[in-house]
C-alpha cells in the first residue's frame, strides 16, 4: 500500500486525531475567515466575490473537490474544521462567526432551525438535488428539506476484532449489560447517544424516553461502568486499531475505513436496532456568500464530483447517482451499507431540549459513581 492510499484510507470525519493524532481540536488551518477582504473587488457573475467560508468536519471532503470547484466556479473555498456538533453550535451562539456553509448532523439541524440560525435553501439553485434518493428528501428532521441538503448518513453499531470474540456480537447486551468482555469495551462519551441506544436495548424507541427511563438507564450504566475501559470521544476506531479494546461503539463509516486496512475488524448492528444519523449542508443566517454556498452544494451533489468525495471519505451516501458510480467493493460492504432488515430497526433521533439536560446530569453522575 503506498502512502497515498494510506492517507486516503485514513480519512475520517469524526475522529479528533489522525495517525498520532495531532489534527488540532476544531481549529482552522489557514485562518479562513480573513478571506473576504483579500478577494474583494473581483466579483463573480452572481454578484458575490470569489470566496466561500466552509465549516466542515475533519477529513470530510474530497481530495481535489475544493480545487475542482475553484476551477469550475472561480470560488476559493476556505475550509475550517470542527470535531463535534457542540463546538459548531457553541460557535454560532453569539451569531454567525463568518461562515457561509456548515455541515451539522440531523438533530443539530433541528436545533439550529429552532434557534433561528439557518436560512432556507433555494432549491432552484440546486438542480442536482434530483440525484438524492427520495427517502433522504422527505425526512422528519427537516420536512420537505427546507433548511438542509443531505451529505452523508451513518449508523451506530459495534465495531469489533473478530479474532478476540467468541462469536459476532448480536446484541447491545455485550456492551451495556454484561461482563463477558470486561475491560475490552469502549463506548461513546456522548450522553444523548448513550441514553438513546440503551433505550433501544430496553426495547424502546430512541425518541420515546421518559425521565423514569433515564433513572433506569443510569442505574444500568453505573452497573456496567466497571467493565468499560473508556468513554471515547468518537475515536473508537483508533482504540480498536491499536488493540486497546476489542469491542467499540462507533459509526459504521469509521469502522468501514478501519476494515479497509485491517481484515480482523468487522461491524455489526445489534438485533435491537440502532440510531441513524445524517450530516447535512446548511446555510447559516448572516452568510455573506449564499449564492456561492448554493453553487458549492450543487457541485458536490453532482454525480462525478460527489463520487470523488465518497471515494475519499468512504461514508454511506444519500446520493443515488454517486452510489451508482461507485465500485462493488464499496456498495456491497456490509459495514457501509448494512442489510435492509437491520436498517429498518434503526431510527433518527429527534432533537429533545427537555431531555438533554437530564441526560447530561445523569451521565455526570455515572462518571462520578
Amino acid at each position, binding site marked *: 500500500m503506498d502512502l497515498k492510499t494510506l492517507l486516503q484510507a485514513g480519512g475520517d470525519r469524526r475522529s479528533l*486525531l489522525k495517525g498520532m493524532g495531532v489534527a488540532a481540536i476544531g481549529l482552522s488551518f489557514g485562518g479562513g475567515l480573513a478571506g473576504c477582504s483579500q478577494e474583494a473587488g473581483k466579483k463573480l457573475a452572481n454578484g458575490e466575490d470569489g470566496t466561500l467560508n466552509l465549516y466542515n468536519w475533519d477529513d470530510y471532503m474530497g481530495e481535489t473537490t475544493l480545487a475542482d470547484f475553484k476551477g469550475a466556479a472561480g470560488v476559493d473555498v476556505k475550509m475550517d474544521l470542527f470535531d463535534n456538533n457542540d463546538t459548531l453550535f457553541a460557535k454560532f451562539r453569539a451569531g454567525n462567526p463568518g461562515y457561509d456553509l456548515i455541515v451539522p448532523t440531523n438533530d443539530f439541524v433541528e436545533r439550529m432551525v429552532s434557534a433561528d440560525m439557518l436560512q432556507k435553501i433555494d432549491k432552484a439553485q440546486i438542480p442536482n438535488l434530483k440525484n438524492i434518493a427520495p427517502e433522504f428528501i422527505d425526512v422528519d428532521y427537516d420536512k420537505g428539506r427546507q433548511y438542509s441538503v443531505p451529505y452523508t448518513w451513518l449508523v451506530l453499531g459495534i465495531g469489533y476484532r473478530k479474532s478476540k470474540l467468541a462469536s459476532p456480537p448480536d446484541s447491545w447486551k455485550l456492551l451495556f449489560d454484561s461482563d463477558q468482555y470486561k475491560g475490552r469495551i469502549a463506548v461513546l462519551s456522548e450522553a444523548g447517544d448513550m441514553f438513546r441506544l440503551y433505550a433501544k436495548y430496553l426495547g424502546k424507541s430512541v425518541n420515546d424516553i421518559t425521565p423514569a427511563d433515564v433513572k433506569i438507564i443510569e442505574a444500568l450504566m453505573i452497573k456496567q*461502568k466497571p467493565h468499560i475501559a473508556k468513554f471515547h470521544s468518537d475515536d473508537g476506531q483508533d482504540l480498536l486499531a491499536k488493540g*486497546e479494546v476489542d469491542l467499540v461503539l462507533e459509526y459504521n463509516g469509521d469502522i468501514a475505513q478501519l476494515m479497509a486496512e485491517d481484515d480482523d475488524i468487522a461491524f455489526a448492528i445489534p438485533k435491537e436496532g440502532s440510531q441513524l444519523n445524517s450530516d447535512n449542508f446548511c446555510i447559516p443566517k448572516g452568510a455573506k456568500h449564499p449564492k456561492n454556498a448554493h453553487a458549492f452544494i450543487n457541485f458536490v451533489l453532482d454525480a462525478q464530483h460527489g463520487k470523488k468525495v465518497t471515494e475519499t471519505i468512504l461514508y454511506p451516501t444519500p446520493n443515488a447517482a454517486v452510489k451508482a458510480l461507485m465500485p462493488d467493493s464499496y456498495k456491497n460492504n456490509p459495514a457501509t451499507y448494512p442489510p435492509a432488515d437491520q436498517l429498518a430497526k434503526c431510527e433518527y433521533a429527534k432533537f429533545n431540549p427537555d431531555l*438533554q439536560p437530564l441526560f447530561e446530569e445523569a451521565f455526570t453522575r455515572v462518571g*462520578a459513581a
Partner: protein
Amino acid sequence: MAEQDWKQQKRPFAAVSTLPLLWTLLFFLLPMGFVWFYSFGRNAGLTEIDIVGTLDNYKRATEWLYLGIFLKSLAVAALVTLICLIVGFPVAMAITFVSEKWRPWLLLGIMLPFWTNLLIRTYALMIVLGQQGYANQGLEALWSGASWLKTLIGLQPLSTWEPAPLLYNNFAVVLGLVYVHLPFMVLPLYSALDRLDKSLIEASLDLGAGHFRTLMKIIVPLAAPGIIAGVMITLIPALGAYLTPDLMGGTDSQMIANVIERQFKRANDWPFGAALSFLLIYAMFILIAMQGLRKKPGGDAR
C-alpha cells in the same frame, strides 16, 4: 525603596503600564465579567440567557454530586503536587549542585518539554502506555526473560503474559499530570535553591549534622518560598486539568474541568457552567490567599 519609585515617576510608569492594563481589562476582566454575570442567569431558549440574579446555578453547583467531583479533583491535584515535589526536589538539588558546565544542559532538559505542545506530549505518553505500547513491550520482555530463567533452573515457566492496564485509568491521569507539571515544580525550586548560601550547608555539616538533618533543618526551610511557589504553580493548573483526564483517563477519571466543558458544549447550559467555573476560581483564590496569609507573620520573605 521599590514602592516609592512609581509614585515619584508617575508619567513613565503610566506610559509602560497603561497598555498592559487596558489589555488585561479588555481581554481578561471584561469577558470574565460576562461569564460572572452568566452565572446568575437562566437559560431562556437555546441561545438566550436571562440575567435574573438567581442563585440556582450555585445551589446546583454545590450539590453533593458536583462537590464530590470538586473534592476528587482537589485530591488528584494534591497527589500530583506531592509527587512532583518529591520527584522535583532532588532534581532541583542536582541542578543546583552540578558543575557550571552541566547546569545549562540540565535546565534545558527541564525546559525542553515546554517547547512541545501539551497535546503532543500527552499523545506521546499514551503511545508509551498503551496495551501494545513500549512500556508493556518492555515488561513483556522482562516477563518472558524471567520465565526463561525459571525453566533454566528447572522450574515451571511463568503464566502467559497479560498486558498491564497502564492507560485509561486514574493511575494514567496522575502519571500524565505529573509528567506535564514537573517542570513547573522544578524551576521555582531551582531558583530558590540556587540563591541559598552554600556556606550554611557546610557549617551544618561541620557542626555535626548528618546529611538528612542538614536537608530537613537547613535546606528545606531556606527553600520554603520556592517550595510554596512550586506547590501553588503546580496545584492550581492540576486542579483545572482538562486534557489529561479526558485523553488518558478511564471511566472513573472525570475531573471538574471536564464537567465544566460539558456544560458549555454538550449540555448547552452556560449559566451553570459559569457557576461551576467561578466556584473553581474561588477555590484557587482561597489557595492563593492561604499562601499570602502564611507569609505575613515572618515579614519580608527576603
